[in-house]
């Protein structure tokens, strides 16, 4: 029991640390680099399997001492490794220019690898030491991980992420103490108590920073703070991100993306709200006078206000409120604004309410803390204008940093739903940064065309317009045909501000004056091709992936095509990196690195493990079985997180519910697996392997049922309240996860029966496969879709069952 609880604590802190590290690295560096670094560091889990396999003869007899030391080292390594990693002068932005950066990257991997390695040692050794109680140890392991996932989400609401590190140390010490308490000698118990006290005191002794010093100097926040007198005037923390509000009196922010060059307006003073130290969203000072807001009429996103009179507006992605202010300045009748981050709302409405002219408390403004797509799906109201804000920064957008973040807002289904809630004659307006050659603007256009076709519109081109400034594009989709009068208004609007019309019914290419020249007419040619019969051929031919995103493949920001890689690499030396979409190649690079290291970690022990003994699983089958399980479990979990994000409507709720749900129910499944095995053996139904076959068969059945029924179920239940939707999600997850918790302990128990020395090795294989699975699942989802990832998981469970089935024959024969 004490060991079980210790495993629970280590596992809890381990998962908490993994999620926390992702947050911290997203702040110090960038999200996509953070993913790569963590994936590699997580291989510490696989390495612990190898280490325990090689030295088990020495380690297992000294289990309590070794567990205790590793738990303490784990506790210490959580804050220390992060502090040490920050001393490495890694600048991922320079990685293609400066070979030294690769060395720094390896140093960071090795440092951050340590806590995972120590925790992995604790977990693996516990499994190897108690082969008869594997199902119980695994139960505590999964239960702990489930609580860790939930706990860290709660903690991130309470504390700044950098202060959470020391808190996560405490369970490490407590686990060490618990294991010592399990021993009989009084001295051991005294040491155990002392360790637990240390654990409780550690977070208090660890220096708390209050402010976060380690952020990359190349992030927007660092840059902004270099201006004389600039300072952070407020901060907010949540699992969604770290918001810092900067006041820069001497060098004002003056954020006005793509403002027309014919305009002379200067934006009024603004406060910059930085999300994770980048992606600035301004809070504009508003004193009730409209004259200082003239600049808002000089943006491409202001076009729909020229075409509508006192519209009812829905702003998706309100951020610091610029689009809400634009609606207010243009005389909107009512404004509903949706913002995901409640902390952002709090800043604009309360903390800086007066500065923002009480914009979010205005009687015409309704502010909703919700996920944009979910809000649209559930809305029963109609709007004259749906404005999708330009919230990501140009840099994040230009470097493809978001490439593998799912976005359910820019999918075909989402645009169809937005179109549904437009009033007749209403407009959907989406503004994006202009990139050369264009990517998102054309993908958006393609998405809108397909969405309109699916909504039963046979001539989508009659309802669309695309305009461009020197740095932004705005796409308009009208519920109804764009008339000649609308066309004249659009021309006049663009002429006065120096914008170009790339597509508009009734306007021929070259007919209007060009203000902003591109080296090729990418957008006007592209728009026409996407509306014509050559659409598929055009998308196939285009250098970037611009096929519309769907709910099954919600990766709007993924533009990378392998075909473009030679061009990117050849242009590297002369700054050809704009063509580079970073996240996807980084992911592939991560996969290759992880694969090579995993193979070494998995294969190395084979040379040392005792050969011989025909009973039980052979080495190859052990690899196949546990690798397949590691991949399948994570594939299933990741795909379900994605599917439930759409249903639950909030990424944090979805991640918490799904991760915790999966792990806790899988833990219960593990706990029940021994009973199932015994029951089946007693009745001599299917022998030892019956339970594994039953579990994998059940998983396959449930997964296929889920794929078939969930879209139908979720559509019908979309309007339920939060609690009801969480309950439905749990009901969907519970039986599947329960069964998914069984194959690992059942297989490991069998290995333990026949070749106990293989137990830590099998556990390490599973660890390595889990790491590979997280990376591989993203790549597969991008190319094949989430349903395909689930089906692959089913196939992998089938493969595991086959590997087991064959070894069972061998086992029974031997």
């Amino acid at each position: 029991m004490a060991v079980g609880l210790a495993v629970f604590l280590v596992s809890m802190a381990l998962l908490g640390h993994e999620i926390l590290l992702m947050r911290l690295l997203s702040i110090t560096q960038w999200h996509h680099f953070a993913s790569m670094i963590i994936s590699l560091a997580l291989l510490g889990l696989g390495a612990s399997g190898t280490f325990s396999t090689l030295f088990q003869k020495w380690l297992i007899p000294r289990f309590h001492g070794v567990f205790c030391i590793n738990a303490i080292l784990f506790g210490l390594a959580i804050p220390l490794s992060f502090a040490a990693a920050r001393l490495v002068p890694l600048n991922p932005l320079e990685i293609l220019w400066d070979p030294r950066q690769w060395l720094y990257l390896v140093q960071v991997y090795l440092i951050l690898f340590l806590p995972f390695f120590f925790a992995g040692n604790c977990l693996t050794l516990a499994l190897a030491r108690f082969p008869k109680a594997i199902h119980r140890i695994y139960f505590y392991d999964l239960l702990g991980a489930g609580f860790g996932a939930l706990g860290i989400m709660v903690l991130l609401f309470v504390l700044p992420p950098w202060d959470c590190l020391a808190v996560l140390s405490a369970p490490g010490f407590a686990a060490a103490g618990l294991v010592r308490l399990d021993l009989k000698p009084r001295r051991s118990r005294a040491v155990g108590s002392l360790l637990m006290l240390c654990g409780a005191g550690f977070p208090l002794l660890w220096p708390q920073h209050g402010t976060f010093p380690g952020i990359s100097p190349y992030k927007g926040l660092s840059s902004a703070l270099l201006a004389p007198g600039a300072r952070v005037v407020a901060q907010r923390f949540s699992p969604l991100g770290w918001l810092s509000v900067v006041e820069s009196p001497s060098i004002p922010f003056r954020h006005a993306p793509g403002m027309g060059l014919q305009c002379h307006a200067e934006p009024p003073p603004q406060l910059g709200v930085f999300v994770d130290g980048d992606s600035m969203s301004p809070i504009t000072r508003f004193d009730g006078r409209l004259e200082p807001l003239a600049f808002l009429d000089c943006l491409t996103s202001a076009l729909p206000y020229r075409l509508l009179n006192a519209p009812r507006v829905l702003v998706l992605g309100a951020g610091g409120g610029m689009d809400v202010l634009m609606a207010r300045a243009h005389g909107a009748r009512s404004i509903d604004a949706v913002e995901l981050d409640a902390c952002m709302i709090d800043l604009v409405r309360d903390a800086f309410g007066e500065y923002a002219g009480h914009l979010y408390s205005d009687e015409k403004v309704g502010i909703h803390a919700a996920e944009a797509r979910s809000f649209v799906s559930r809305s029963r109201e109609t709007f004259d204008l749906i404005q999708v804000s330009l919230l990501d920064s140009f840099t994040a957008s230009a470097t493809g940093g978001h490439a593998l973040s799912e976005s359910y807002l820019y999918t075909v289904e989402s645009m169809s739903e937005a179109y549904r809630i437009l009033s007749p004659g209403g407009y959907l307006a989406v503004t994006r940064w202009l990139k050369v050659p264009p990517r998102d603007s054309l993908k958006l256009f393609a998405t809108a065309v397909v969405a309109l076709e699916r909504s039963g519109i046979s001539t989508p081109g009659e309802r669309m317009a695309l305009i461009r400034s020197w740095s932004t594009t705005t796409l308009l989709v009208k519920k109804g045909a764009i008339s000649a009068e609308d066309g004249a208004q659009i021309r006049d609007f663009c002429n006065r501000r120096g914008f170009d019309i790339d597509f508009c019914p009734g306007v021929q290419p070259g007919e209007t004056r060009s203000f902003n020249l591109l080296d090729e007419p990418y957008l006007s040619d592209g728009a026409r091709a996407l509306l014509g019969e050559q659409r598929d051929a055009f998308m196939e031919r285009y250098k970037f992936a611009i096929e519309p995103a769907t709910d099954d493949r919600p990766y709007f920001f993924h533009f990378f095509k392998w075909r473009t890689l030679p061009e990117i690499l050849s242009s590297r030396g002369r700054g050809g990196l704009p063509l580079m979409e970073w996240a996807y190649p980084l992911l592939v690079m991560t996969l290759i690195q992880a694969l090579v290291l995993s193979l070494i970690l998995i294969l190395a022990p084979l040379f040392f493990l005792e050969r011989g003994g025909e009973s039980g699983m052979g080495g190859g089958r052990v690899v196949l079985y546990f690798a397949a399980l590691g991949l399948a479990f994570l594939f299933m979990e990741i795909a379900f997180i994605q599917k439930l994000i759409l249903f639950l409507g909030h990424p944090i709720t979805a991640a918490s519910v799904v991760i915790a749900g999966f792990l806790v129910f899988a833990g219960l499944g593990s706990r029940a697996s021994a009973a199932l095995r015994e029951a089946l053996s007693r009745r001599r139904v299917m022998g030892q392997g019956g339970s594994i076959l039953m579990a994998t068969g059940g998983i396959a059945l449930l997964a296929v049922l889920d794929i078939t029924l969930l879209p139908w179920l979720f559509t019908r239940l979309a309007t339920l309240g939060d609690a009801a939707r969480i309950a439905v999600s749990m009901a969907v997850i519970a039986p599947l996860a329960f069964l998914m918790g069984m194959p690992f302990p059942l297989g490991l128990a069998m290995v333990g029966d026949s070749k106990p020395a293989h137990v830590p090795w099998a556990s390490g294989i599973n660890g390595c496969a889990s790491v590979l699975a997280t990376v591989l699942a993203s790549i597969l989802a991008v190319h094949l879709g989430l349903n395909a990832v689930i089906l692959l998981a089913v196939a992998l469970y089938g493969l595991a069952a086959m590997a087991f089935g064959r070894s069972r024959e061998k086992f029974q024969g031997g």
Partner: protein
Amino acid sequence: MVRISTSGPVWILALVLAASTPLHAADDPFKSAREGMVREIEGDVRRTSERIGKAALDPRVMEVLARVLRHEFVPESEKSHAYENRPLPIGYGQTISQPYIVALMTDLLKVGGESVVLEVGTGSGYQAAVLAEIVRSVYSIEIIEELAGTAAERLKRLGYKNVEVRTGDGYHGWKEHAPFDGIVVTAAASHIPPPLIEQLKPGGRMVIPVGGPFFVQQLLLVEKGQEGDIQTRQLLPVAFVPLTGGH
């Protein structure tokens, strides 16, 4: 005595020349590296000729790049990389631009011996030094006080007398010396400040790199017609310094 008196003016002339011409050590240890860099830039220009619309840049620009001591503009730790055709960190989250881009931007400005140029974002001062070799006067504004101070001192030490550096907000340009034949904005902005467009002479050109550090974005050329009409052109993607001051 006589000898001294006759050679005196020669020495004085030499001293005056040394003081008035920027320092280009003829036999400095980086000479061959610098020549290699220039050859590399020429190669890059040829390879990108389709995008930039020419197979070679203005020979004056290339001559200047072969003269200006880039190693004087980078931190000590980066000196050995000074003539690699890439951006280098100079501290404060800023970079010294890739030489190819400096050459291209200078060429795009189409300025000559009588031109007056405004630079927004001095950084290390390298771009200002390159411009100073070609034009009559360069006025450069830098937000970060420390960078402005170091760049001004460096430019002075290297003998660039026609460059004036000021700490401040580049948004409003430098009215006292306007209008300008060319403007370089080496700190990317979310929008182009209207005062800068106003301070551009009819027929003048403004070059702006758009985006973040070390990464490539677009290079934007803004041309002001004789009638004051404005036209922009997106040129090849480039890597440049980040947005400073959040414009």
